[in-house]
């Protein structure tokens, strides 16, 4: 016998192996580590000018024309003379905040509603699922915008609105998982042993049904940042000057195309915040993809 490791540890190692066997996971995690580093060390990378609220981007002057990169502003300044480098660095924190907050609340709501729906069944299930269907009929952004308009402008309001929209996805996944697992032999075996329904739910069904929700949640962290950026672009997000990638693109909206003789003159106003968003979303999507492969019980063991 080789050295004895605890089986849970062995299983965990195997999961890690399955995740990192996938090259896209390595790229995804590298990007994520990079972004996390930037977010954590933001005060050192770009020391805040206003100590009371570091999220406000510093700006020198109010000229609407962006200025190209210089030694002082290595990524240049965008419309309103906000420093793009500072915005990109502190925007990372904002992106993490949006993504994780929104997805966390949406999963909590979605999983609980899904569990109730799948567990109670019958008329309750029917009512919940029809409500979810109705919410599904409204486009994400329209619904989120309606909620933001009702609550008022602000980043926190956007986050709440998005979680109130996103949970509907998880309800369906959780419920269908529960319905499939309820018919599994090991659940039946537990019933034969006399384990009560609630215990079966907690011990056998939820832990096995949660994986698809987790994979989905990881992927949604990225896409929620996009939606939030879109709303910022429409002017529904954070107040002017807040370090937020969406906001920065919104500031640069008049400079997407430069003057006729040099259309790419203001590239840095769009490419840098836009690139940040793309890479951030890509990181989460790649990770989500790798996790899906790693967790899939069908291909996990042969």
């Amino acid at each position: 016998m080789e050295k004895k490791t605890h089986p849970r540890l062995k299983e965990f190692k195997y999961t890690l192996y399955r995740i990192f066997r996938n090259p896209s996971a390595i790229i995804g995690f590298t990007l994520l580590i990079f972004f996390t580093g930037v977010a954590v060390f933001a005060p050192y990378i770009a020391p805040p000018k206003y100590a009371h609220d570091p999220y406000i981007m510093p700006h020198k002057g109010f000229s609407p024309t962006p200025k190209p990169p210089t030694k002082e502003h290595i990524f240049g300044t965008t419309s309103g003379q906000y420093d793009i480098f500072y915005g990109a660095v502190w925007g990372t924190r904002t992106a993490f905040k949006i993504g994780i907050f929104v997805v966390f609340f949406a999963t909590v709501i979605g999983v609980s509603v899904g569990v109730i729906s799948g567990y109670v069944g019958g008329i309750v299930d029917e009512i919940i699922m029809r409500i979810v269907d109705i919410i599904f009929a409204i486009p994400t952004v329209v619904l989120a915008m309606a909620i933001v308009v009702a609550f008022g402008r602000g980043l926190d309001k956007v986050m709440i609105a998005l979680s109130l929209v996103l949970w509907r996805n998880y309800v369906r996944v959780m419920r269908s998982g529960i319905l499939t697992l309820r018919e599994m032999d090991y659940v039946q075996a537990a019933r034969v042993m006399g384990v009560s329904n609630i215990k079966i739910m907690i011990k056998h069904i939820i832990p096995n049904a949660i994986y698809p929700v987790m994979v989905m949640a990881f992927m949604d962290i990225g896409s929620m940042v996009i939606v939030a950026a879109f709303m910022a672009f429409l002017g529904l997000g954070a107040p002017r000057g807040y370090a937020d990638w969406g906001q920065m693109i919104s500031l640069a909206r008049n400079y997407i195309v430069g003057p006729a003789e040099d259309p790419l003159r203001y590239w840095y106003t769009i490419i840098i915040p836009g690139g940040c968003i793309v890479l951030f979303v890509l990181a989460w999507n790649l990770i989500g993809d790798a996790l899906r492969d790693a967790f899939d019980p069908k291909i996990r063991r042969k």
Partner: protein
Amino acid sequence: MPKLIQAEDVVTNFYTYEGVVKALNKVGLVVDHGATFGLVGESGCGKSVMVRSMMRIVQEPGQIEGGKVVLFFNGDQQQEAVDLLQQSEAYMEDLRGNHISMIFQEPNAALNPIMSIGDQISESFLFHRKKEMSKKILEDLSADDCRVFLPLKKLQQTLYTIAADNPKSFILIICSKIPILSLWQRRLKREALQRSIDIIRKLSISNPSETVHRYPHNLSGGMKQRIVIAIALACHPMLLIADEATSNLDVTIQAQILELLKDLKKTEIASILLITHDLGIVAETCDRVGVMYAGNLCEVADVEKLFQNPQHPYTKALLESVPKFSQEGRLRSIDGAVPNLVSPPSGCRFHPRCSHAMEICKQTFPEEIEIEENHMVACHLYVK
């Protein structure tokens, strides 16, 4: 009897997280023309991997790493022998379903749920028999003076001439893509459907001309397996490989399918390679049997010899552990389980479970010995 297919020293490995699974360790077998060869063994012994290696359809992460699979198109004549492991993928594609076809355990997985039965059988004809069918249609076209508008008939004749000459011609591919011109295939499809009806009539399915228009979900399990057999038999293969073809069916349905295979053997198919874990099926349908254990072939013999006079300890034990009508009392069983092929036992792979294990069994791998005519055993108990 002349040989049909001969595999020699096939080695197939699977590269997994746990390590290299040595699924086949130099396995060789010979299927004769007109014979039914049964390959038996427990699950995980490599019998499926063996035939998949012979057909070159081993799934990822498996790799065929050595050996030879020689197919004799015309008896023993060496010049017409082909080593399948050396051929191109295109060659194999043409071979599978045409000269060698396979049926699998699960008919539901083998049939496409959104295609009608007729279309699924026709597919095989359209893929492998385009040339021949086009020739026949050409004859028909020139024979009958039907109502087809004359230039159209001309066009059809030209196209079918091309098809009869080279079915993969570029012009035909283009014509099949252009909406109105693609109608030229209609006759071809009609012909294929007609052939499909003929083939399922042979499988004693009632009302064949109606069955071809039905979909798999309309049919019962036994019926579906018949359709799968029909697809396999469509092109009159030289060898039919049946991989656990009846093990998911009920006893009475299994009896029907086995009778059918026996009947077909007399009329339609040259040889059958039957893979099963059920020794009863082997005893009833096969002429020759190979017993596999943990990626090795332990014993090959004619069916009477193997069942009446088994030589390898594994074969003996396996035969004793099968429930029988006549036997009374406790069932004999083989202790332990099939070894993990990542780290197979040294020497003879059966030695940890063998009641006759000797010192030499742990060290060296036994060679295959012919102990009597046509009876091969790989065991140290028998010395040359």
